Each structure stands twice: as structure tokens, then as C-alpha cells.
């Protein structure tokens, strides 16, 4: 790039491209022209049917207005170009705290597409589904080993659905004990899905404040934990990346009062192979396979949120339950105490399969992965402590949460620093979460990053800290290297334009 020309100058006369073809790609609808098409079907080998005759004119439709008409190569170009506007793990470190953006192994994509796996219908007879069922069974066994729990369901398709499933099982259990109770306790540091799930389970949310160390205040807990309380939902390590040191005491308080301990397992990347929730009193927990178990996020999903439980909750598992009977795998559907189904078909099998591939790749070595993840987080913490404010000075596990307190003095906030990171070639960390840290900067490197990459990240963060003092403007107006600058979110929400129109 000739540095003497500004980009606007370079773009003079360039109708198609600002800087490069990808930079001015329109919407697919804007490329459409009558008669084009990107995919053919085999010729019809049975007599054709007139739809109006077969269905009646009132049940048939005409042309779908505005629907795309483009060629195969146009589709490829469009989406290839669009893809270049994304950042991704495959392009660099993605230290998004709480999201565990680790390497998504390519071999998992390969095996998920095998003929005989991708091709299988969820309603086909179990006799010809033994391979799929074995995959599910094997994964379940692995997850039980890692969590130290007694049994599990693989049906929930995301963490949030796992939460709901777990809460419904808690409710069903308590009901079977005679009283479903009314409330679920949730620390103020919890993820938004926790309270949202509680409501769908028909409970009230009772928020509880973290203590000055960011941990659950056991005195507080004792006070709140009345006969009305069904459960406490704890994230452990917490969203501060800190282990709840009093977890056993917490469990004891709950159990003593007939309530259960739910653990949000989104942060299992700090524990797998090192400690088992089943050992420290957890009754129900979900796992985010799209976090800890490396399945790709795909720009927002899919996921899988298996729920592992203690024995007492087994009768309430959603149907169907995968079981092994005399070397044959079966799906149990008749389970009278079951909470029912949370999703049609058998859950996100394709995601579950990838999670198993991940687990098999590590085996007992999963402990090493966890150690590396925690090591990376602590290495970054150590190297950034001098530059950024650390609101809770407790031992970090897989992630570390700083705040923008020091940079705020120069008018630079966590979002500005995050955006400036983009110019340095990194995805931002998580901003504005957890809520208990004003101006939070939540950094989770995962075990996938090498020391070299961590060092570059540390350099970038330090450099931005310096810029915040010497040249705050460049930080506040970042990013400067992307196709578009900061976008007007307020305008977007005020008068929403949510679809293309001709």
C-alpha cells in the first residue's frame, strides 16, 4: 500500500472496489438476475404433476418475489468475499473470556461428515443405528468421568437449554419430594442465561451479591437459603475466573436445607482432568461442548449443553435415554418420571460427535490441556498486571478479568481498548461482563495459544495502555483497519431495518 495516498484518494474512480473487491461486496439480492441458478437437479423420472391440480390453486404459491437468482460461482464469490470480513480462531488468538475460543480441530469436521454418520436419520430403527448410539454412549461415559457425576443427558443443544433442563429436573425431583419450592439463587456475577432459564423453569430469581472477593458470601447464602429455595446456580470457576473456594461449604448449606447445587459448567476448561464437580457437592451441571470440548462456534452456534446429574436425579432425565443392554445400545423412551423432551429428535448429534473426537484426541491428557489453559491465563495476567487494574486479586484459573479503571482517567474505556485490539490483529476480549466488574476486560487465552502468541497479545495490550496515555484519540476511534468503522447501534435499534427490500 502506497502510504502517501489516503484510502479515499486510492478509491477515486473505483466503482467496484474500495481497496479491493471484497471491500464493496453487496447483498446477494443485489446480484440477482432472472434465469440464473447455481444448482441443478437430476431430471424427474416419474410423471410430472401440475401443482394447482394436485394441491388446488388456493394452496399453491406463485413466484417468490425477490428470491435470489445467481450462478454457482457468484454464490461462491459472494460468501468467500463476505468471509474475509470475519475474524476467526483460524486467523489468530480470540481471547473472548467465558467463550473458550480454542482451536476447533479439523479432523472433527471430517469425521462429522462421514457417510454413515451425517447421513443417518434420527427415526431409523436402533438396529441400524448402533454406530450413532455407541458414539453417544461413549461420549456420555467420557463426560461422566470428567465431571464425576452419575449420569447425563446429551439432548440439550446449548448451554442455556442445558440450564433449563437441569432446573426442570431439580423441580421434578423436589416435586417428587413434595414441594417444588419457589426460588433459585443466582450470584450477580452469573451469565444472563442463568436467570432467563430460571424463569422458564417456573422459578423466581433471587439475585445474591458476591462478596468483596467476588466469591459467594456463605453467610449471605445461609440467610437467603430459606425453605423456598430450590437451588443455587453457581458458575465455578466463577465468571471472574476464580474457583469458589468454599464450594463444599456452599453445597453443604444447600443440602442441609433440602436445596440442590446447580453448577454452570461453562468454565470447565479450568477443571477438566484436574477436579470433578461431582466430588465437591454439585448435584446438577451442564457442559458447553462448544466451549470446553472445542466444537466450532460457527458465528453463534450450533452448540450442545449436556446435563450431568447425581443419581437422585436419574429418574427425571429427559427422554429418550441412551443405554446399553447386553452389548446393544438402546433408546429408552418410557420413563414415567422424566421431565419429557427438550428437543425433537436426538439433540445435536453432529456436535456431540465432534466433542467425542476431541476427548478421544486428548484422553487422560485432557489434564495437560487444562493446565496449559490456566498457565496461559496466569502468564497474561502476570504480564499485564502493571498496565491494567485488577479488581479482584484472587488466583486466576483459565481466565483473568481486568478493568479499565486506569485508562478511564484518559477517557479510554474497555470497549475502546477492545476495538483497538482489532488493529493489532486480535479479536477483542469480552467487554462488559461480568456485571460486577465495571469496565470489565475478560481475557481467556485457552490452551491453544503458544507462548509466542500470548507474548504478541501482551505486547499489544501494553502498547494500547501506552497509547491510552499518549494518544487516546487513536484508541477511542479504533478500529482503523476494518472495512467499516464503529457502527451506529443506536440508529439500528431505533428504526430497525431487518431485511432487504427491493
Amino acid at each position, binding site marked *: 500500500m502506497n502510504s502517501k495516498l489516503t484510502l479515499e484518494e486510492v478509491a477515486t474512480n473505483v466503482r467496484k472496489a474500495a481497496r479491493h473487491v471484497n471491500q464493496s461486496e453487496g*447483498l446477494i*439480492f443485489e446480484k440477482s438476475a432472472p434465469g440464473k*441458478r447455481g444448482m441443478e*437437479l437430476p431430471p424427474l423420472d*416419474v410423471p410430472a*404433476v401440475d*401443482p394447482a391440480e394436485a*394441491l388446488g390453486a388456493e394452496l399453491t*404459491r406463485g413466484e*417468490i418475489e*425477490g*428470491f435470489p437468482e445467481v450462478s454457482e460461482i457468484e454464490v*461462491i464469490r459472494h*460468501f468467500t468475499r463476505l468471509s*474475509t*470480513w470475519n*475474524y*476467526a480462531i483460524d486467523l489468530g488468538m*480470540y481471547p473472548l473470556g467465558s467463550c473458550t475460543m480454542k482451536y476447533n480441530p479439523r479432523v472433527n469436521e471430517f469425521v462429522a461428515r462421514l457417510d*454413515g454418520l451425517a447421513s*443417518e*436419520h434420527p*427415526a431409523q430403527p436402533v438396529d441400524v443405528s448402533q*454406530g*450413532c448410539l*455407541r458414539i453417544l454412549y461413549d461420549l456420555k461415559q467420557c463426560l461422566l468421568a470428567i465431571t464425576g457425576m452419575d449420569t447425563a443427558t446429551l439432548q440439550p*443443544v446449548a448451554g*442455556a437449554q442445558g440450564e433449563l433442563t437441569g432446573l426442570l429436573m431439580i423441580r421434578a425431583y423436589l416435586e417428587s419430594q413434595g414441594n417444588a419450592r419457589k426460588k433459585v439463587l443466582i450470584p450477580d456475577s452469573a451469565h*444472563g442465561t442463568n436467570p432467563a432459564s430460571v424463569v422458564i*423453569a417456573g422459578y423466581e430469581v433471587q439475585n445474591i451479591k458476591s462478596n468483596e472477593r467476588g466469591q459467594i458470601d456463605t453467610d449471605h447464602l445461609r440467610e437467603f437459603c430459606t425453605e423456598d429455595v430450590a437451588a443455587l446456580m453457581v458458575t465455578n470457576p466463577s465468571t471472574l475466573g476464580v474457583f469458589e473456594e468454599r464450594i463444599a461449604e456452599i453445597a453443604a448449606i444447600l443440602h442441609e436445607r433440602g436445596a440442590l447445587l446447580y453448577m454452570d459448567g461453562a468454565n470447565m476448561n479450568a477443571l477438566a482432568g484436574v*477436579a470433578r464437580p461431582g466430588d465437591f457437592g454439585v448435584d446438577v451441571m451442564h457442559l458447553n461442548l462448544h466451549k470446553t470440548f472445542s466444537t466450532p*462456534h460457527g*458465528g*453463534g*452456534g*450450533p*452448540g450442545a449443553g449436556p446435563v450431568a446429574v447425581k443419581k437422585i436425579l436419574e429418574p427425571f432425565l429427559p427422554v429418550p435415554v441412551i443405554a446399553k443392554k447386553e452389548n446393544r445400545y438402546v433408546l429408552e423412551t418410557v420413563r414415567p418420571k422424566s421431565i419429557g*423432551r*427438550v*428437543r*425433537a*429428535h*436426538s439433540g445435536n448429534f453432529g*456436535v456431540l460427535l465432534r466433542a467425542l*473426537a476431541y476427548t478421544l484426541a486428548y484422553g*487422560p491428557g*485432557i489434564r495437560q490441556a487444562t493446565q496449559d489453559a*490456566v*498457565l496461559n491465563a496466569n502468564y497474561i495476567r*502476570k504480564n499485564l498486571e502493571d498496565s491494567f487494574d485488577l479488581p479482584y486479586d*484472587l488466583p486466576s484459573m483459565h481466565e483473568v478479568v481486568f478493568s479499565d479503571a486506569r485508562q478511564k482517567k484518559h477517557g479510554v474505556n474497555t470497549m475502546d481498548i477492545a476495538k483497538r485490539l*482489532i488493529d493489532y490483529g486480535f479479536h477483542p476480549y469480552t467487554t462488559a461482563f461480568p456485571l460486577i466488574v465495571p469496565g470489565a476486560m475478560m481475557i481467556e487465552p485457552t490452551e491453544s495459544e503458544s507462548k509466542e502468541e500470548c507474548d504478541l497479545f501482551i505486547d499489544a495490550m501494553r502498547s494500547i495502555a501506552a497509547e491510552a496515555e499518549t494518544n487516546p484519540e487513536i484508541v477511542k476511534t479504533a478500529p482503523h483497519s476494518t*472495512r*467499516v*468503522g464503529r*457502527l451506529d447501534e443506536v440508529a*439500528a*435499534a431505533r428504526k430497525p431495518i*431487518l431485511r*432487504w427490500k427491493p
Partner: protein
Amino acid sequence: MLDAIGVASADELFESIPEKFRLREPLPLPGPMSEMEIIQYFQARAAENARGYTSFLGAGVYQHARSVVADALIQRGEFLTSYTPYQAEISQGTLTAIFEFQTLMCQLTGQEVANASMYDGSTAMTEAVLMAERLTGRHRVLVARSVHPEYRQVLATYAKNLGLQIEEIGYTKSGQIDAATLTGEKLGDVAAVVVQSPNFFGVLEEIPVLAETAHGAGALLVTTIAEAVSLGIVRPPVEADIVAMEGQSFGIPPSYGGPYVGVIATRDKFVRQMPGRLAGRTTDSAGRRGFVLTLATREQHIRREKATSNICTNEALYALAATIHLCLIGKEGLREMALHNLAKAKFAAAELEKIPGVRRVFSGRVFNEFVLEFPRSVKLINHALLREKIIGPLPLGVHYPELTKRGLVCVTETMPRAEIERLAANIKKILETPLS
């Protein structure tokens, strides 16, 4: 790195975990496996399934033509390995594609706004019902029995603790909802009437009439679509208030149950009660068009217990896959694909009805699925068919005790005529063989 941190060993990093909870032994997990061994493990599993079988199953999961193009594109690391596009400046690829997805879903369903995305059809329908409850402030829901039984089960699970009262409405000889029972009395206080079209029996429902009935009583009409390819020729449910759709038919492999992609489409005026993510158009400071996630105040990460739903991670990658698939097949191709389904199903029904003792159960118009009555148990027939590497009709008796000996047959554009004829020939032969 340990030095830099000032610890002697990695174990020290875990000292905040109480000693007694720290594992000493490696976990008893299979592995570690190299890539080659992982592939071998899964290839062995694939061989234990129905690879190479011809299947006549549908019932919410359909075998449709898909292009390798879509699969190649969603495997680009930039799409595959990115997170939810919260940081819009480096997520314009995903955001633009989501905006296109929303547009396509509106075009297909005849609705004004669509989200991106829900977990699947069953949860989309469930959330549509919850949405209707919020919109009407009413707590009774009427659900057609011709709605996918598993969808109804999911609704029941979610609804149980929300004070929602669900009543089921039967079906007529046509296989359609028994609209005659939807009297003013029955509809009083109802939040939504829920139908599926094509319904679980493959039969199309009459949406305009049902909408009128529902609206007449102040209720909303929620329409579920499990077989989205039908929209290539079937009139879209424009009169419905909320459409909850399963998008698996748009180029997503069956994959033993998921991942698929659900979607909710509705009227503009209901958007603020809609669950799920939405991408909206906006501009940057230089006036360039760009897209952002918007109306986030509906969502759990902002509103927590007051959110419209608990959904966070969704099925974005498969929304992308469906988008690419629909761009490829295009306006003409989608219609053609739908027509092929119609023609093949009609042909198959005619072939099968020729078999003595086999007859169509419902008189309603069907798209690519239909219900047949057999002179003996469908399970027994299927058992014999499996030996011929054919997966036969779905037995309906499990979910509809009154429909034993009935099976649901699905025939899509991917089914060669010769295989349809083979199915017919085999069923004929099986039925000719006396039960031993």
C-alpha cells in the same frame, strides 16, 4: 512461562482448589488418539449404521439434494471458527449473511420479520407459543394433534411450569385439524391456535380459514413448518401471526438429529416480543452500510430474567448453510425441487396403493408425505424390509394409538423411481408371505 509467573509447577496454579478435590490420578478416559485413529474409530461407527440403505423416513427430517458448495463454504475458517458477531467491525461476514438469512426467511414465509435463529423447529414452535402468550396475555393454547408429536412433547416440557394450559385438537378424515371443534366457546381466552402445515401426516392445512377463526376470537395463529421445501410451491402462511419453521430441508444433513436450524418469523409489530438474535442494517461514521446485532434488549445478556427467551448460542452456522443453499438453488430451483417432491410422492402413493390391502388413510392434499394403512403391523413389515436394505414407513402407532398398522411414507426428489418400485415390490412380497 512458569518462571515468569513465579510458580514452580503447573500444579501450583490450582492451589485455589481445595486439596481434597484435586485429582491425583489421570482420568480413566480412552485415548489419546492420533488423527488416524480418530478417523478409524468413527469409520467403524459409520459402518454400524444404515449406510447404503434406502430410507422412506421423513417426519420432520428430510433427505434433500444439497450442493457440496455450501458445505465447502461453511468450512471456511472465517465462518466456522468465529463467535457470535458481537464485535461488528470484524464480523461483517457473518452479520451480512444473517441479514440475508432473515430476508430469505421472510420471502419464503410471507412474514415481515424473521430471526436468526432458534435451536430447531420444535423449540421454535415452543418459543412461538410463549411469544403468543406474552403478546395476548392469555394462557390457553390449542394445539392440533396433527402437529409433530415430538414438537408437542417439547412444548409440554417447556409449558409445564409456566401456567400454560395446552389442549389438543383432533384431526378429521382429511388428516387436517378438526376445525369444526374450534368454536367461539372453545376459543375464548385462547392465546394461540397451533397448527403445522404440511402437518405430521403430510397433509396441508388451510391457513387462511384457521387464521380467520383464531383472529375472530382474539387468538393468534401459530403455524409450524417442518418441511420447508414445501414453500417452493405451497402458499406461504401469510395470515399466520407467527411462523415457526425447521430449516433442515435447506441443505442440512440429517446427522442423526442435529444440528439443524429453527426460525421464527412474524409481523413487524410483534418484533419486540420475538426471541433470538436479529441483525439490522446501519451505517458507520463514514456513512458506509454495515450490519449489527440489534434489539438486544429482548435478550438474556441484557435483560436477564426479563428476556424474551433464555437462548444464547443458536444455530448460526446452519442458518448460513441454509442461506447458501437457497442462493444456489434459487427461485426457479426451489420451485422445481418442490415439484419433484410432489410428483414423486404422488407416484409412490399410487404404486403402493396398488398393493392389495394397502390404502391411503387421509383424503387431504399432501406434499411429499402420506399415511398408508397396511394389513399388518408396520414394524413387522419394516423388519422384513431392513433385510433388503430398505428403511420403511414410520409406524404411527407409537404416537397415535388409534393409528396402529398405519405408516408415514416420505418421498423426496432424491428418491429414484427404481427405489420406489423396489419398495412397492418388497412390501407386496412381504404381505404375500403368511405370518409364521
